[in-house]
């Protein structure tokens, strides 16, 4: 039998349907792969018993003819999704040992559709980061290696999810994207990542980072897989007041392969000064492929792009400073308390010990920009600029169907690089943040390799709730790019 971990989600789905193998076999193969690649540290918590149990139940369900859309497919769950009875940490020390008494809506949807959970994937602490180097549970190592053989970051914050999929340790994984946390690691690990429209997937049960930006999405091997998985994750949820009351389309049906006559926007402001030649070329190649497929390429302007990062690094920390106030050592998670301590002492010690450096920095920046005297200059100003960015996209989408841009300004970098200066790290999100601020769907897919032989991604940004167009164009681009390279770090 061929290695079952090489399958795509769609292939595995079809193979299971045909009876070529069982979910238990598929799951066992992935558990074995997880063991073999433990050095990548992609998972914080592996749940092999639960996986086998779910796989068995799934096989039984299938035997009764009750297979769901994700029936029997083993996946990784970013450890930001609360999973009932399974430790959920958000990669933070402060949540170590926390076992939710509830299942997030997205994981509930996936499991109801038959998906099997292999474990909880590593991430940047509280999803704050672009390199997966801020996890309390250790760095994740990118399965790809550069020419010098150094360990590379997988991107972040969904770095464990991306590495798990790239290294065949899961057929697919859930991710969450606040400023690029699905798309950027997808690009760094050579996989597909889709951040849906804000409101498409319920946020209920996902540890909140920045509530107005957070959105769950699929991280997969192919565009088709992303379409399949999104169909199972998405849907209106009355428990989330920002969840869109919209029907979930058949995303897979959108993959017609035909984009003739579609208008693809190229935002000139994304061609930033100092853009590496290979990124420029990647983008130009993408444009050429879409044009060849019959699309019309149109220049568009998103004049406030330059301000997106600054806006993001005010809005997201502000919301986070408030969202993370509940981690106070009182009702769950870690508590640090010494004899004679006051309540304030307990708060301050628990939070100092429980949160890592980057999280502390963001909480404090967020506290500062909301504080008396600074609210208008920082937070409120950022919200106004956010509207300008939102309007830029609305204007652009008056004349195009989707926008094509690079996902990230570079390929994966070495672990340790970009540390020490928080701002330098923030620049990794420069191309992903604008769509996040505007709440738009964004799909990253690998279309080429860097000079170092590392994957590079392009992203397609769509109109609100038009994931279908993004997937359709993405499917065409995927075929044209024919990205078949495999992670170089898995040999031996």
């Amino acid at each position, binding site marked *: 039998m061929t290695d079952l971990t090489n399958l795509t989600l769609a292939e595995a789905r079809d193979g299971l349907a045909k009876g070529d193998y069982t979910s238990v076999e598929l799951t066992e193969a992935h558990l074995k792969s997880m063991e073999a690649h433990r050095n990548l540290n992609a998972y914080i918590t592996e749940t092999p018993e639960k996986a086998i149990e779910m796989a068995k139940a799934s096989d039984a369900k299938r035997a009764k003819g009750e297979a769901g859309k994700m029936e029997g497919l083993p996946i990784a769950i970013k450890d930001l*999704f*609360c999973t009932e009875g399974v430790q*959920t940490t*958000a990669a933070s020390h402060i*949540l170590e040992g*926390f076992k*939710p*008494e*509830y299942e*997030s809506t997205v994981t509930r949807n996936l499991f109801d559709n038959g998906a099997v959970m292999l474990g909880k994937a590593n991430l940047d602490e509280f999803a704050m980061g672009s390199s997966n180097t801020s996890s309390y549970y250790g760095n994740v190592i990118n399965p790809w290696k550069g020419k010098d053989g150094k360990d590379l970051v997988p991107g972040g914050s969904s770095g464990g999810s991306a590495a798990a999929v790239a290294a065949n340790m899961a057929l697919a994984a859930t991710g969450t994207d606040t400023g690029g946390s699905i798309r950027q690691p997808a690009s760094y690990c050579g996989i597909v990542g889709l951040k849906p429209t804000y409101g498409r997937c319920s*946020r*209920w*049960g*996902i*540890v*909140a980072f*920045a*509530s*107005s930006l957070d959105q769950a999405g699929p991280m997969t091997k192919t565009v088709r897989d992303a379409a399949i998985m999104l169909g199972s994750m998405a849907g209106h949820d*009355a*428990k*989330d*007041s*920002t969840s869109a009351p919209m029907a979930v389309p058949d995303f897979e049906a959108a993959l017609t392969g035909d984009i003739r006559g579609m208008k693809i926007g190229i935002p000139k402001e994304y061609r930033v000064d100092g853009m590496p030649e290979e990124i420029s070329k990647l983008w130009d190649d993408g444009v050429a492929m879409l044009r060849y497929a019959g699309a019309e390429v149109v220049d568009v302007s998103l004049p406030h792009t330059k301000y997106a990062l600054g806006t993001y690094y005010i809005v997201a920390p*502000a*919301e986070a*400073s*408030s969202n*993370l*106030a*509940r981690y*106070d050592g*009182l*009702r*769950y998670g870690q508590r640090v308390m010494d004899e004679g301590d006051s*309540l*304030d002492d307990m*708060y301050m010690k628990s939070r100092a010990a429980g949160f890592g450096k980057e999280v502390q920095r963001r909480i404090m920046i967020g*506290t500062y920009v*909301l*504080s*008396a005297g600074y*609210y208008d200059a920082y*937070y409120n100003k950022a919200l106004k600029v956010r509207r300008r960015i939102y309007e830029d996209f609305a204007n652009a989408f008056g004349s195009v169907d989707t926008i094509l841009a690079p996902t990230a300004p570079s390929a994966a970098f070495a672990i340790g690089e970009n540390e020490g200066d928080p701002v330098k790290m923030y620049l990794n999100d420069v191309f992903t943040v604008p769509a996040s601020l505007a709440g738009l769907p964004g799909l990253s897919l690998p279309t080429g390799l860097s000079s170092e032989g590392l994957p590079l991604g392009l992203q397609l940004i769509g109109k609100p709730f038009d994931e279908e167009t993004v997937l359709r164009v993405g499917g065409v681009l995927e075929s044209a790019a024919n990205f078949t390279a495999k992670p170089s770090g898995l040999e031996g």
Partner: protein
Amino acid sequence: MTYVIEGSTGPWEIVVGLEVHCQVISESKLFSGASTKFGNDPNTNVSLVDAAMPGMLPVVNAACVRQAVKTGLGLKAKINKESVFARKNYFYADLPQGYQISQFDKPIVGEGTIILDMPDGSTKAVGIERLHLEQDAGKSMHDQDPKYSHIDLNRSGVALMEIVSMPDIRTPEEAGAYLTKLRAIVRYLGTCDGNMNEGSMRCDANVSVRRPGEPFGTRCEIKNVNSIRFVMQAIEIEAKRQVEVIEGGGEIVQETRLYDQRLGETRSMRSKEMAHDYRYFPDPDLLPLVFDDAFISEIEKELPELPDEKKARFMRENGLSAYDAGVLVAEKEKADYYEVVAKGRDGKLAANWVITNLFGALNKAEVGIADSPVSAENLGKLIDLISDDTISGRIAKDVFEIMIETGGDPEKIVEEKGLKQITDTGAIETAIDEVIAANPDKVEEIRAGKDKMLGWFVGQVMKSTGGKANPGMVNKMLRDKILG
């Protein structure tokens, strides 16, 4: 009515604004489906949302929104068709999220007015600045353990309406009248049960003093006073303290204070608010609360007659004085009771019986109107017995006393005790003749012009008939017989 504090350097005026938290009457909490019931085991009326578990999200309760709008309409206030829930950030043991979801610069209700009914029958308008919706915190209990506090989140997330007055109040009595009236309004509306000692209505008072006519002084906020009487006391005591501080050459620091009713003083709570900065911002888990005119007019249609309108109607239709009408409408139950008694009867007589006799007796017995032993129907019947001359007003008082004791039906009491008025001329004549015969000297005095003595004869006849003779008939017949 002017109220001043006579300081050693001259008179001071007090300026008071009240912030009242009213617990909204609803089945479930403002942002979760847990029950609002009081007195259950700790942490049982708590959902994962109320406990602020990671990833939990708020969903607004429609009924709480309606209650807030209804209250706003009752306060004749501007209803804001778009309002925003904002987070008020601070750490406290009974605040699980680390923030309270409240409303800040865009409350659901804007400016309105409350008309105070003062004890002397006068009225005064006090402005309402705003009403906003917010969630309650949980409860910290400090007396269970010497080293630890216990936290119960049953109240966490229960809907509150915070109603903020303008600084229009100038005397402790006005503060009392304001709270009495506000409580009456929310109870009429059914939006809050107004129970201050159970905490469903809580009051913070902002107090400052100034020389009459001068700009406002620095204010102090007295937190969480739990009865109307204590609010009045606290204001007086705090104002006096401020005068003393200023006259002693000191300065008032804006701060939060606590009223200690046992010691009769206010105390600084400064320790608690060290470095507060609430960092309000729109709650990104919620969207702006928007409704249209149709929604408002639908609620408008459900509005009951409110105290002010009822008072005006009692004055207009029943001829009551402002004072009597004010007393009757102060509680909806009282007004309802009165209306049953007055229906088809003399409104003023009914008011008199309800206010003087019934309320007097209830006060003495420390019983509320809801537990009155005398039903409104029975009190009405009693008035009928007087009106149709079945009994005299004096007998009626005796009957009423029996009714208070036994809760009985006045008709039966009159029947059983044989209290029916004697209207039989023969029987009255016999009694009169006996009294005249026994007092020939007094008859002479009357005939000599001492008219007043006639009253003495009436009394004697009433006495000899056990009070049952019709006093009017006795009077007329005596007059005829003696002065004939």
